[in-house]
C-alpha cells in the first residue's frame, strides 16, 4: 500500500507526544483517487442537472407516472359495465383474488362475513351482505365508491384505488357481488345521499 520502496524507511517525525511518534507517510494513491472521483462526480452531476438541464425534476417524474396510471385506468374503465362485473362475480379465479384482498384490507371495517358486526359489536363500515345500499346497488356505482371513497370520507369509506390499484378494486367488488345476485331486490338507506339528490 505504501508508495515507498521497501528499502527506504518512511520519515519518522522527531517530535514525541507523551511517547507517541508519527510517521509522515505519503497519502495512499488509491485513497486520493477515490476522493477525486467523488469530487469530479459532484461537479459533473451538478453541471449536468443544474446548468445543462438534463434530467427530470421529481415533481415532473411523479406527474408523468401518475398521468400514465390515469390513462391506463381510463382505458380499463371504458370496458367495464354492470353486466361485465356481474359476470366477473361468477368467475371463481377473480372472486378468489378479491377474497384475498378483502380479508387483509376490508375486514377491519366490514367484518369477515360482510355484516360489519364482530362479536356483537358494530364495526365502522356498512354491512355488505344485506340488500340495503347507501350509494346505490349498481356494480358500477359500487365500483366508484371503492375506487374514490364515500362522498364524505370522514363518515365513511376511504378511496382505495390509489393503494390497491384498479385491478384489485375490481376483484374485491367481484367478491362482494358473488354474495349477491343480479336483479335481487334492494332498498336505499335512509341517509343515502342519492335519496336527497332524488336520483335512483
Amino acid at each position, binding site marked *: 500500500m505504501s508508495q515507498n520502496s521497501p528499502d527506504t524507511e518512511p520519515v519518522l517525525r522527531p517530535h514525541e507526544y*507523551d511517547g507517541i511518534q508519527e510517521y509522515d507517510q505519503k497519502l495512499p494513491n488509491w485513497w486520493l483517487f477515490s476522493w477525486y472521483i467523488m469530487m469530479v462526480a459532484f461537479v459533473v452531476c451538478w453541471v449536468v442537472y443544474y446548468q445543462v438541464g438534463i434530467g427530470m*425534476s421529481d415533481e415532473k417524474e411523479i406527474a408523468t407516472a401518475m398521468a400514465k396510471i390515469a390513462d391506463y385506468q381510463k382505458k380499463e374503465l371504458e370496458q367495464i359495465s354492470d353486466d361485465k362485473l356481474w359476470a366477473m362475480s361468477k368467475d371463481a379465479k377473480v372472486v378468489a383474488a378479491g377474497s384475498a384482498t378483502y380479508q*387483509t384490507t376490508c375486514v377491519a371495517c366490514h367484518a369477515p362475513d360482510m355484516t360489519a358486526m364482530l362479536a356483537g359489536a358494530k364495526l365502522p363500515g356498512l354491512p355488505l351482505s344485506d340488500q340495503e345500499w347507501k350509494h346505490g346497488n349498481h356494480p358500477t356505482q359500487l365500483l366508484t365508491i371503492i375506487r374514490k371513497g364515500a362522498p364524505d*370520507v370522514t363518515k365513511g369509506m376511504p378511496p382505495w384505488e390509489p393503494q390497491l390499484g384498479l385491478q384489485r378494486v375490481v376483484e374485491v367488488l367481484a367478491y362482494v357481488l358473488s354474495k349477491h345476485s343480479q336483479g335481487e331486490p334492494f332498498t336505499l338507506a335512509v341517509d343515502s345521499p342519492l335519496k336527497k339528490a332524488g336520483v335512483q
Partner: protein
Amino acid sequence: MTTSAAAKQTIEFNDKVVRQFMWASIIWGLVGMLVGVLIAAQLNFHELNLTSWLSFGRLRPLHTNAVIFAFVGNMMFAGIYYSTQRLCKVRMGSDLLSNIHFWGWQMIIVSAAITLPLGFTRGQEYAELIWPIDIAVALIWVVFAVNFFWTLAKRNEPSLYVALWFYIATIITVAMLYIVNHLSIPTSWTHSYTIFSGVQNALVQWWYGHNAVAFFLTTPILGIMYYFLPKAVERPVYSYRLSIVHFWSLVFIYIWAGPHHLLNTSLPKWLQMLGMFFSLMLWAPSWGGMLNGLLTLRGAWDKLRTDPVVKFFVAAVTFYGMCTFEGPLLSIRAVNALSHYSDWTIGHVHSGALGWNGMMAAGLFYWLTPRLYGTKLYSVPMANFHFWISVFGILLYVAAMWVSGIMQGLMLNSTNAAGTALTYPNFLETLTAIRPMMGFRVIGGALYLVGMGLMLVNLWLTARSGKAVNETREVTVIQRNSVDTMGLKTTFLADPVTYFFGGLFLLMGWIFLPKGADITALICSLIFGGIAVKKFAGSHASWSQWYDRLLENWLPFTLLTFVAVALGGLIQIVPTVMVNRAKNMEDRIQQVYTPLELTGRDIYVSEGCYNCHSQMIRTMLPDVLRYGDYSRMGESIYDHPFQWGSKRTGPDLAREGGKYPHSWHFNHMKDPRSTSIGSNMPSYPHLFTQKFDQKTLPKKIATMVTLGVPYPAMTDVEIKEDAIKQGIEIVNRLKEDNLSASPDTKIVAIIAYLQKLGKYDTPEVEDKLKTAPGIPTLIPGPGNPDKNRPGGAE
C-alpha cells in the same frame, strides 16, 4: 500551579475524574442497552408495552439518548480527561470544574431518565430533552469547554497532538449545534415549542442530528483512537500528513451532509443534492481515519492475537470503515429511496454505535483500568470472550437489519410491471415479512449486552485487585511566551487559508449565481484551484511551517476549526430560514390547528408516535400510491416541531386526516389489532382515561402566535370553550357508532389531530404574501439553484 522559574515540576494527574467517567459510562451503557433490548422485544411482542411510561414511543428516545449521551458521552470524557492531561503534560485546568462536569452530567442523565418515560419531550430525535435540561446540558458543556481550554492554555507541551485537534472540533461544534437546534420558547416548565417549523425545523434538526453523529460519536472517538491505539500497539502513527488532510476535510465536509436525512422529501432539491454529494465526498476523509488507525498496526499485528485491547481497537476501526462506507452509499438518493424509513438505517447506526463506539469503549476501558488501579487485568480470557460475543452479536444484529430493511424496502416500493399498482398494498404484509428478522435483532442485541456485563465484572474485579492510583510525573515547564503568540493576521492571512476561502467563494458562485455566471464561477474556481496547487507545490515547506506554528497556538487553531465547521451550516440553513420563507409556501399552506387539535398534536409528540410514523410522503411513485399526493413544504409550515419522522415501523400519516371515521381511530388506539390485523403497535388505554391539559392551552396558543402562526384573536376562555366544543362534536360522532368517550379526554384530542393531518389551503399569491409571517425582502445574493435551472420552472 506556581509560575516559579524552576524548569522541572512534579505534577499529579487528575485520574479520579477519569475513573468516575469510566464507571459511569459502563453503568449507563448497560442501562441504555438493556432498554434497547427491551424496546426491540416490544416490536416483536406488543404486550411488553406494559404501561404508558414503559411504551415503545417513550422508551426509544431514552434508549438513544442513553447510548449517545450517557454511554458514549461519559466514555468520551474519560478518554479526553486522561489523554489531554498527558498530551499537555499538565493537570486539568480546575478540579472544581472537573467535579461539576462529572456530577452535572450524571444529574442530566438521571433527569433525562425520569422525564422521557413520563412523556416530557421536545419531539425531535436526539434532541428530546425538555428545555430546563437543555440549558443544563449547555452549561455543563461550557464548564467542560472552559476546563479543557484552560488545560490547553497552561500546557507544558508546545505543540498540539492530533488527538487534541479532534477534541477541539468536538467541543466547539457540539456547542454550536446543540444551542441552535434547541432554541425554543417555553410554554411551561416541562414544555416548549421549537422556534423553527416545518422544512426549516427539518433542516436544522438534521444539521444537528447528523453532526451529533459526526462530532459526538465520531470526532472525539477518533481523538481517543489517535492517543490510545498507538499507546496500545506501541508503534508510531502511520501518517502525520494523512492526519492533517483527513482532519480538516472531515470537519469541513461533515457539516454539509445533514440533508441526506431528508432525501426525496419536500426539502428543496438543491439541498438534497448538496447533502448527497458531500456525503459521497466524505467517504475518503472518513477512511483516512480508518487507514491511520489500521496502518499504525504495521509491524505490530502479532499483538492482535494476544492483547484484547488491540482486538477491540482493530474491530472498532474496521466497523468505523464499514459504517463510513455504508453511510455515503445510503446517501445516494436512489439507494435512500429504498433504505430510508427502513431497518437498514437502524442496522447502519448500530454498526456504528455497537461496532465503532462500543468496541472503542471496551478497548479503552480494558487499557485504562489496570493503569488507573495499578494492577493487571483480572481475566484476559474473559475479555476475549467479551470480544467474540460482541462481534457475533453485532453481526447478527446488523445482518438481520440488512435483510429486514432491504426486504421491506423492496416490498414497499414494488409495483406491477406496468407501474400502475403497488404489489403489496397492505403495509402490514411488509411488517409481517420482517418479523423473524426483528426477532434475530433481539438476540444479537442481548448477546452484546451480555458482553457488556462481563466487562463490568472483569473490570470490577480488576479494580478490586488493585488500588486507585493517580499518576505523578516530572515535567519540564515551558516558557509561556514561547507558545500561543500567533496573531489573527498570521492565522487568517496565510496562504492555505486564503486559497481555501477564495476557492470556496467561487464554488458558491457556481452553485448560487444565475445562468451564465454560474459556469463562469466554476471555470474561475477550477483555474484558481490550479493556481493553488501550483503554489503549494512551490512552497509547501512554508505551508508546513505555518501549520506547525498553528499547532503551537491553541486559540487560532480553535478559531479556524470553528470557521470550518460553521460554514456548511451557514450556507445551507440561512437561505432556507431567511430568504426562502415566502417561497416555502408556494402552492399550499397548512390549515392552522384548532386548540383541540394542537392539544392532540402535543399528545402525539409526547407519546413519541414519530418514532414509528412519518408525516412525509416522498416524491416517489410508491409513496404517492400508498399514502396520497406527495407532501409540500407549506404543508408543515406551522408544525413546531416538524414530525416528518425517520422510521416507518407503521405507515406514513401525512394524509391520515379524513381517511377513516373517528370510530376507526378510537378502536385502533384502544386495540390496534382490532382494526389492523398483525399490527405491533402498542395499545393506548391511558389516553381514554386521562384528561388533556386545558390549563396551559392559552399559553401554548400565545406562544404559537409569537412564532408567527396566524391564530385569530381568542380569549383564554374562548380557547378552552373551543376545545371542549370540538371535543363534544367528536364524542357525538362516536356515539353514532355506539362508542363513548368524555370530550375532555386525550383520546378525543388525538382523534381531532389525526383527522386534521394533511389539511391545507391553496391561497392566492397576494393572500400568501399577506399572511406569510415576517418575510424579509429578498436580499440580492443567494439565488435558488432549483429556480435557476434551465427548464426547471414547470
